[in-house]
C-alpha cells in the first residue's frame, strides 16, 4: 500500500515538473507578445499623447495581463512614489521583481534592460525609436519562442510523465 502511494507521489511530482517546464515554454511567447503590445501602447502614448511616463506605463499595463501588467504598474508606482527616481531606475527595479515571476529568458530581459538608460530620458522621436527597436527585437524573440514552444512543450510533458514512470518501475 505504501509502495503504491509512494509510486503515485513520485509519478505526480515528476509529471508536475514536466508540465511546469512545458508551461514555461507555452508562456514565454505569450509574455513576449504581451510585452510587444504593452510597448506598442507605450509608444503610442509617448508619440501622440506625450503622456507622462507613469501614466503611460499604467495605460500600457492596462492593455495586457499579468505578469507584464504587474511589471509596468510596478514601475509606474515606483516613479510616482517619488524620491527622485528616474524612469529607467524605476524600470530596473521593477524588472528585478518581474524576472523571477516571468518565464522570460535572460536574453529577452536584456531587450528590456536596454530601455533602462533611455526610458523617459530623451525626446519623443528618440523614445519612439528605442521602443520600436525593442519591439522589433521582441518580435524576433517571440518567433524563436514560438518555434521552441512547438518543439519542446509536448516533449517536456511526455518526458516528465515517462521519467516518473521509469523511476517508479525501477524502484518497485
Amino acid at each position, binding site marked *: 500500500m505504501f509502495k503504491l502511494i509512494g509510486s503515485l507521489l513520485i509519478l505526480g511530482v515528476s509529471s508536475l515538473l514536466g508540465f511546469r517546464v512545458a508551461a514555461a515554454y507555452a508562456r514565454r511567447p505569450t509574455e513576449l507578445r504581451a510585452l510587444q503590445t504593452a510597448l506598442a501602447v507605450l509608444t503610442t502614448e509617448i508619440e501622440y499623447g506625450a503622456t507622462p511616463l507613469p501614466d503611460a506605463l499604467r495605460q500600457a499595463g492596462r492593455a495586457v495581463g499579468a505578469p507584464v501588467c504587474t511589471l509596468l504598474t510596478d514601475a509606474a508606482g515606483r516613479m510616482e512614489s517619488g524620491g527622485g527616481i528616474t524612469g529607467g531606475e524605476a524600470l530596473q527595479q521593477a524588472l528585478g521583481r518581474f524576472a523571477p515571476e516571468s518565464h522570460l529568458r535572460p536574453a529577452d530581459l536584456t531587450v528590456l534592460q536596454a530601455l533602462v538608460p533611455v526610458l523617459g530620458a530623451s525626446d519623443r522621436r528618440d523614445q519612439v525609436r528605442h521602443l520600436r527597436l525593442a519591439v522589433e527585437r521582441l518580435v524576433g524573440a517571440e518567433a524563436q519562442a514560438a518555434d521552441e514552444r512547438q*518543439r*519542446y512543450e*509536448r*516533449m517536456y510533458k*511526455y*518526458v516528465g510523465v*515517462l*521519467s516518473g*514512470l*521509469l523511476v517508479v*518501475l*525501477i524502484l*518497485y
Partner: protein
Amino acid sequence: MAIDVLLLFKIAGVGIIVALMATILKQAGKDDQGQLVTLVGFLLVIMIVASLLGKFFGLVRTTFGM
C-alpha cells in the same frame, strides 16, 4: 516466482519507456539527450540482469557443488 515475473515486466517496461522517451526527444531535435536516455536505460537493465545472472551462477554453483 511471481516476483521474478515482475522482473520481466520491469525490464520490458524500462525498455518501452526508454524507447518512447528517446523517440520524443529525437523528434524535438534533442538527439543527444535521446542517446543519453537510451544509455541510462541500458545501464539500468544491465544492472538488473547482472544481479540476476549473479544469483543464477551462484545457484548453479551450489547445485553442482562447484
